[in-house]
């Protein structure tokens, strides 16, 4: 690892950081534009263009990298892994800002700052995708978290609804997120105390063996802190409340970019450093995965609120993803990273799509998050309902959708490492999951109620949802090109 005093940034380094710089510059640009003259459409176009540019900037870098080779820039790695997740984060954030468009149409307060917060959060997420040092890990997490508090509480100053819920969810997230950061920091401090290094590589020199007590404690504290961000059971308690209380576009962002970034950094932290020779850590993670899958799916059964259903289902999905992570310890193969990468890609599309549908039908004045409110959607808005059905079936892992290929990857990674018990949990969890996904689908198939309230919706959000729908099907039917691409992002 290089030391700060002998480090000088060169032009080539700046080129490597281009995606991060582009998105940062976009946030400054949008801030200045707001200062000059408020125009929501201009801010939206700038945001989306900046994020797409950021995603595009990863392409030449990806092509110039030979597989398995990366560049280390002080606390950030630029390698296939970081670039893939950077691109995914940028695209998802662009999608999230577009599906949010119709939601804020009648909002009686300034709307532009939501985009600004979204851009700042994305900067944090991009830092996380490349973090190779505990400093950048914390910086990334906090930039992402701070911006998210603002996004979750965004409608508080509007006049059209008593926004206690949004405030409640933001405060909940703020407090619990702070606690989890403190736990994480304690773990980091224990690592530093033993190795004298804050780089992820330092974990490799953690004592393991007879005197591994403190190492295990340190790693468990770090895993707990991350488990909170990923809302794994038993660190999940905030998730349903926050998802339900916050505005749908913010939930969409939190559920997609927030999770993808946290998982990307966890993958690098645990797999790249190969620090997890400790059986107790692997066992703990396996238990977390199993409990998350079972509890997430079972609790989702009891919900009548769509956002809560999706919150619990996201808990279960994070449990599925841990299977890929755990597989990485056993087989040391790159298949687990491929599996996680593809699953996160599919997860981002289908989750953004599902919350996008809710955002499309909701406004800051009223959230349409009761499952009963979706009755007859199939006959009232066929395209929207078809997209929603596809997202739900993809979450359930049914073929023709990206979710199926993702599940196939997980099964492959699990079989490779012989994780039969976890695969059993996956099968059982998917079976339970079908029940509540189908419940929503069935609701949409019922004849529309006589006293149906009029449906909102605009063209921008619908167009974005149809793009997601198309991406979901293309990835489900012809994923070969993505498979080739992600087979090169091994750490």
């Amino acid at each position, binding site marked *: 690892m290089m030391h700060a005093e002998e480090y000088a940034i060169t032009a080539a380094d700046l080129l490597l950081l281009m995606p991060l710089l582009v998105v940062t510059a976009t946030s400054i640009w949008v801030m200045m534009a707001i200062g000059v003259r408020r125009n929501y459409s201009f801010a939206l176009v700038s945001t989306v263009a900046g994020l797409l540019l950021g995603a595009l900037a990863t392409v030449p870098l990806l092509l110039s990298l030979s597989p398995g080779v990366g560049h280390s820039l002080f606390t950030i790695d630029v390698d296939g892994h970081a670039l893939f997740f950077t691109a995914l984060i940028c695209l998802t954030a662009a999608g999230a800002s577009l599906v949010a468009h119709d939601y804020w149409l009648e909002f009686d307060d300034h709307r532009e700052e939501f985009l600004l917060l979204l851009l700042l959060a994305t900067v944090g997420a991009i830092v996380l995708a490349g973090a190779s040092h505990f400093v950048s890990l914390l910086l990334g997490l906090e930039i992402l978290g701070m911006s998210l508090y603002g996004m979750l509480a965004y409608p508080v100053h509007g006049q059209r609804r008593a926004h206690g819920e949004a405030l409640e969810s933001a405060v909940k997230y703020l407090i619990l997120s702070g606690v989890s950061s403190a736990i994480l920091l304690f773990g980091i401090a224990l690592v530093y105390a033993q190795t004298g290094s804050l780089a992820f590589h330092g974990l490799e020199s953690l004592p393991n063996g007879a005197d591994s007590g403190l190492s295990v404690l340190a790693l468990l504290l770090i895993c707990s802190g991350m488990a909170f961000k990923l809302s794994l059971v038993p660190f999940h308690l905030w998730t349903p409340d926050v998802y339900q209380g916050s505005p749908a576009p913010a939930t969409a962002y939190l559920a997609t970019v927030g999770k993808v970034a946290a998982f990307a950094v966890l993958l690098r932290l645990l797999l790249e450093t190969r620090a997890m020779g400790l059986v107790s850590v692997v066992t703990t993670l396996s238990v977390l995965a199993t409990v998350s899958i079972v509890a997430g799916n079972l609790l989702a059964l009891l919900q009548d609120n769509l956002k809560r259903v999706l919150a619990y289902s996201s808990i279960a999905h994070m449990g599925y993803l841990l299977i890929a992570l755990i597989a990485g310890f056993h087989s040391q193969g790159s298949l687990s990273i491929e599996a996680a990468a593809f699953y996160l890609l599919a997860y981002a599309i289908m989750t953004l799509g599902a919350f996008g549908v809710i955002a499309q039908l909701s406004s800051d004045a009223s959230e349409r998050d009761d499952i009963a409110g979706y009755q007859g959607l199939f006959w009232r808005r066929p395209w929207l309902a078809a997209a929603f059905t596809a997202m739900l079936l993809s979450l359930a*892992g*049914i*073929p023709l959708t990206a979710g199926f290929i993702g599940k*196939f990857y997980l*099964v492959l990674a699990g079989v490779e490492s012989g994780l039969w018990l976890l695969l059993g949990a996956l*099968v059982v969890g998917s079976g339970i999951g079908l*029940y509540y996904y*189908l419940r929503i689908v069935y609701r949409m*198939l019922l004849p529309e109620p006589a006293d149906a309230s009029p449906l909102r919706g605009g063209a921008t959000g619908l167009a974005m949802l149809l793009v997601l729908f198309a991406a979901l099907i293309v990835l489900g039917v012809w994923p*070969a090109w993505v498979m080739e691409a992600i087979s090169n992002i091994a750490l």
Partner: protein
Amino acid sequence: MIVPWLIALLFVGGLLAWASERFGAEWPRRVALAVLVLELLLLASLLGGSLQAGWLAEFNHAWLPRFGISLHFAVDGLSLLLLLLTAFLGIVAIGSAWAEITERTGFFYFNLLWTLAGVVGVFSAIDLFLFFFFWEVMLIPMYFIIAIWGHENKFYAAKKFFIFTQVSGLLMLVAIVAIAWFHYLQFGFFSFDYLDLLEVDMSRNVEFWIMLGFFLGFAVKLPSVPFHNWLPDAHSQAPSAGSIILAGVLLKTGAYGLVRFAVPLFPNASAEFAPVAMTLAAISILYCAKVAFAQADLKRLIAYTSVSHMGFVTLGIYAWNELALQGAVMTMLAHGLSAAALFMLAGALQHRIHTRDLFAMGGFWRHAPRMGAMAMFFSIAALGMPGLGNFVGEFLALLGAFQANQVLTIVSAFGLIFASVYSLWVIQRAFHGKFPEASLDPGRLPDLDRREMAYYFAMVAGLVWMGVYPQSFLDLSAPTLQALLEGQAVLATPGAPQP
């Protein structure tokens, strides 16, 4: 090259049928009918091929090269028989839905054609990933058919159907991935191709567990006791077209999977497992015949008889000799026709008198003699009357099974007697006796019209053909079955791909 077109035709036809709804509610069924007739003709064109030269038609193209997954379709005599049955019953299903489905017709025929597309894919896929892909694809449209156009308890039935088959399907996915993984360990590259996977050597223990994954997937679909629980609900709640496709075609995919994949891929484990499977088959035959007799709901009754008859198929498959396998295949075909016809009759009755309750029926023969005659014919066919297809199938299956396991075969043979009991009971209950004049106006029970009679006569002709000259069917499936018995995919002849 023809096989992908067979599937694409149904997918595209489904979309066309949906889109054609804008011209009028009767257009989707016309489009669907045209598509299926074309499908049947395309399939019939394959009949001329030489059966001794390997596959009748084959298509192989890379799909997901990262994992050695390809779009590998191939059709041989066995697949072709089942594909013909699929297309034929598809047409019958349209006939049954013709007057019954009046709401959202476009979406209905879209789902019908997409279900059949999945089934055609299942019967022709040789790559196991592709097979699983289609295995699941056929579920979603079927779910919609039951959930939208079903009867009073449709959501429960649709959900149960979906969850049962999906969970067992996931177990099968794990098993498929596991066998592909062992192929990777042995040969150093990924492949999901059936021909490659046939060569995998596994330890006894591993082979058994993977085989069990496949067996569970297929046994739920078949279904075999104790996994039959979803079927009576799904059949009784589905609209008649859905019941016809379920009983006639979807159940056969489970049996096909056993013959094509479960036993040949794991010959040793299957041989060890055969007594268990045959016992389950015998229990299915007897127990479900008994339960069928206790049903008051006509469609539930027929559903249970389906489980009972499919027991003969399982029995024949696990006896694993040519005679028994021929019997299993014949039973699949004949039961496909007879069960479809009976469900169509039950649907026709329900459409007319709005009940499936046998105790609300009686004396129908006098008011609807043609319907009575048809019910009589297909009940007698189902109970195994010599001269009709079901007899040939069940007789051959028992004959073959007798060589493998005498006790279970003797026990199973009682199923034939039970079958006559419940079949004749249905006729007696619904068509003889006193007409329930108090609750039913005879005017609500018009007899079968010409269009309906045409469908029944086509099925009558099929069953008589199977019963009188079964050789024309046996000849088609024999090369495949002989090859499978020798542990090969196709008969080893010059020009054929060597497994």
